[in-house]
């Protein structure tokens, strides 16, 4: 999805594409007749009063705030005491998705619309959530309400819908979620979407996500955790600009949990991302947020893509290696990603060796001069090239070192894991630029062995890609001021989520990644923030020490930088999801 080119649909195109919604959503399962013949007056706090009459199981009339009645197609599904119905209003770009709790008469209403001011694209579905109740003649309005919650923070669920579509929906944040399209997409990649979590009762919740930086499509459903079932709706335009508006049922399985580190007295009812609330002048109430406002990280839109030539010129002006310059993206120091770096290792100092990687041409000769400087050459060359380097001891006699390849075009760097006990080595070879743009890092792992005094390296055994980390979550405290959580969502991707001040998980993003096993419990994790800022994070993580060390590589207008990364980790659990990935015969799916 990072690479899909989504069409900028115009308002008129959206209008035309929405015409079929007048008939209501489709559904592979039979729609419910639970509301047929009934009338509901839904009173929303801070929202419109909605008066519904349901003439059949797919036609209703609606009056908003006492206005004229309009007729629309709709669909309804039930899940335990919940009735969920969805409709759009014909000849408009808006509609309502209404969850009614028949036990309590409490309601949650999602007003949804296209072409609104809170989104950069007309195609992106927007929403405003209203909590309220069904007005029953002769009864007082209930005091309770459904409310936002952090109770799903950490939960992960596998779903199979009645459409045949399978997904993994992981909830590692109170405002975002990860999802893996197990059937819609061929690659095992995960993605993130701004999300809402609403609590109905201790086992029933409402979830909504909008794929804001991608197609803008919305998925929402009510979940019963007791029976691991769902009933929901999907609305929007897919990557082919086709309208998707359907309701679904699904069955699933809770696949695990990540431990929340939020305070025990934090229930998530009022968590709001997007900075501090607007300040009120003395004696005044703060202004309400704009309708539809939500947290949405949109890195693809704010990043300036550069050409190969532009990046090269920037690199010629400035290629920073371990300088600690605060202006480099992956800077070292207290506020960046190197505040908790390991000490530099002198294990290589004075050594000479050759690294030979499978299918990677001639070997590389190295002479390590001191703690910060080395010389290298391609085997057969006569000239040695000097480089600044840094090395960490990631595990016993397992060194991770990195250096820029000075003068290279595009600017390249090597991150080399070298096991001094067996000679095995893995190099992550990276360079600026991809087929998409110049300031996105491209990378690959090569495996090989070292030739050095005292080591008899194996001929066949190599480090290898691994799925051992899949599903697991670890905090990464780069400094006392910056902690994120890595979730290893699939064999080929990961997400990271930023902790808020009270250690609730908030803003989230995702990227393709690779995982290499060096030793039991010691892995290389490498990701590039594809489709946005193009920066690479390459670390070795050691489960025994709960420490990560490594290097960041990135480029932009300020030049190219290679810097150190260090983090302290906590293992916060994970999901049993490995079984869903890997090459397999694919069904029809979507």
């Amino acid at each position, binding site marked *: 999805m990072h690479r899909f080119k989504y069409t900028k649909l115009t308002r008129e195109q959206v209008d035309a594409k929405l015409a079929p919604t007048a008939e209501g959503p489709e559904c592979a399962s039979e729609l419910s007749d639970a509301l047929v013949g009934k009338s509901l007056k839904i009173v929303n706090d801070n929202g419109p009063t909605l008066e519904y009459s349901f003439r059949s199981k797919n036609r209703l009339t609606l009056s908003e705030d006492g206005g004229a009645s309009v007729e629309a197609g709709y669909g309804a599904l039930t899940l335990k005491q919940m009735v969920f119905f969805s409709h759009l209003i014909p000849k408009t770009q808006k509609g309502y998705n209404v969850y009614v709790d028949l036990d309590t008469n409490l309601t949650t209403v999602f007003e949804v619309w296209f072409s609104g001011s809170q989104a950069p694209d007309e195609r992106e579905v927007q929403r405003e959530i209203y909590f309220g109740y069904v007005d029953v003649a002769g009864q007082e309005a209930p005091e309770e309400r459904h409310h936002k919650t952090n109770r799903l923070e950490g939960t992960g669920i596998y779903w199979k819908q009645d459409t045949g579509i399978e997904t993994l929906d992981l909830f590692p944040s109170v405002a975002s979620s990860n999802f893996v399209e197990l059937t819609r997409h061929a690659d095992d990649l995960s993605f993130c979407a701004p999300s809402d979590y609403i609590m109905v009762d201790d086992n029933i919740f409402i979830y909504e996500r909008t794929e804001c930086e991608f197609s803008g499509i919305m998925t929402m459903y009510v979940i019963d955790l007791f029976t691991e079932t769902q009933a929901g709706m999907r609305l929007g335009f897919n990557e082919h600009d086709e309208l998707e508006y359907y309701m679904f049922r699904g069955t699933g399985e809770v696949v695990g949990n990540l431990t929340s580190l939020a305070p025990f007295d934090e229930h998530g009812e009022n968590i709001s991302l997007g*900075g*501090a609330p607007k300040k009120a*002048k003395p004696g005044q109430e703060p202004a309400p947020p704009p309708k539809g406002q939500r*947290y949405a*990280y949109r890195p693809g839109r704010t990043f300036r893509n550069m050409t190969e030539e532009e990046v090269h010129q920037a690199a010629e002006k400035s290629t920073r290696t371990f300088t600690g310059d605060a202006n480099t*993206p992956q800077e070292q120091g207290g506020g960046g990603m190197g505040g908790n770096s390991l000490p530099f290792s002198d294990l290589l100092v004075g050594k000479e060796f050759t690294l030979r990687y499978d299918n990677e041409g001639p070997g590389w000769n190295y002479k390590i001069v001191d703690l910060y400087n080395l010389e290298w050459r391609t085997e057969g060359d006569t000239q040695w090239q000097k480089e600044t380097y840094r090395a960490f001891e990631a595990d016993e006699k397992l060194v991770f070192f990195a250096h820029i390849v000075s003068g290279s075009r595009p600017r390249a760097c090597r991150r080399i894991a070298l096991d001094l006990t067996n000679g095995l080595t893995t190099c992550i070879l990276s360079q600026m630029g991809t087929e998409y743009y110049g300031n996105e890092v491209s990378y690959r792992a090569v495996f090989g062995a070292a030739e050095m005094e005292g080591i008899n390296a194996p001929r066949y055994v190599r480090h290898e890609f691994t799925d051992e980390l899949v599903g697991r979550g670890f905090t990464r405290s780069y400094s006392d001021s910056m902690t994120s959580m890595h979730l290893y969502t699939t064999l080929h991707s990961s997400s990271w989520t*930023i902790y808020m001040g009270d250690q609730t998980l908030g803003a989230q993003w995702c990227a393709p990644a690779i995982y290499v096993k060096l030793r039991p419990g010691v892995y290389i994790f490498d990701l590039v923030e594809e489709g946005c800022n193009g920066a690479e994070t390459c670390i070795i993580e050691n489960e025994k020490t709960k420490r990560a060390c490594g290097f960041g590589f990135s480029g932009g207008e300020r030049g190219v930088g290679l810097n150190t990364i260090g983090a302290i980790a906590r293992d916060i659990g994970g999901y049993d999801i490995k079984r869903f990935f890997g090459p397999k015969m694919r069904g029809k799916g979507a």
Partner: protein
Amino acid sequence: MTTLKPKAESVKSPKPDSGRRSFIWKTGAAMSAVLASAVAGVSKSGIDPDAGLKDRIDRLSNQIAGMEDANAIRRLHQVYESLLDRGMYEEIVDMFTDDGEVIFNGGLFSGKNGGIRRLYCERFKSGLTGKKIGPAPGFEPDPSRQLDIVEVSTDRRTATGQFPFSLQVGIPMTEDSSLVEMARLQGEGILKWWEGGVHEASYIKVGNIWKIKRLEYGVTSKADFKPGRVYARQIDIPAFSKTYPADPTGPDKLV
């Protein structure tokens, strides 16, 4: 909170003080003391009761007016602290005179609509600086330094004040990494620490309204403390090394 008794002044002094005279006191207690001494003075006087009484009444009127000014300064500072605590930086700027000055972290910020606006509405705002928090453990100030002191000039047009502070200071992380960008999205991405010390301020009356003429953050301690922690470590925050515009939120002058 205020303290100290009024400076000892002879009630028999026939002339008002020339030049600067200070009023330093604890509100309430000071008022009682003044009234008590006035009553005593009246009852013991006998030579020229009318002249003496008039002098004393004038002096008392001046003293009471001075106390009112001192209280007005305290209220002004309370408002300042409250606005800072609530992040209402624009409103703070309006509390300064047009030619006001602030000294902060080795930099002089000059002019209400220049340096002072830059300091509060850009630097402080971006770092959410100013939230009132308790002192860092191990860095509690000497109780005698926790006193408010206000001195009002005789002509009641100017005043000085000292007020202890204990607050959170922050600067936004400057990196371009996605982690920082995402943290900014949720109102964070800020390096925060604690600072304690004494505000030293001078005030001037503009019309009938007191304004801040000069405010100096006299920092005595900086620590890596945030509320909830039971320990803190002293930290060293470098003073400004560049002025505006080289530093977009920097001072007009290094001091």
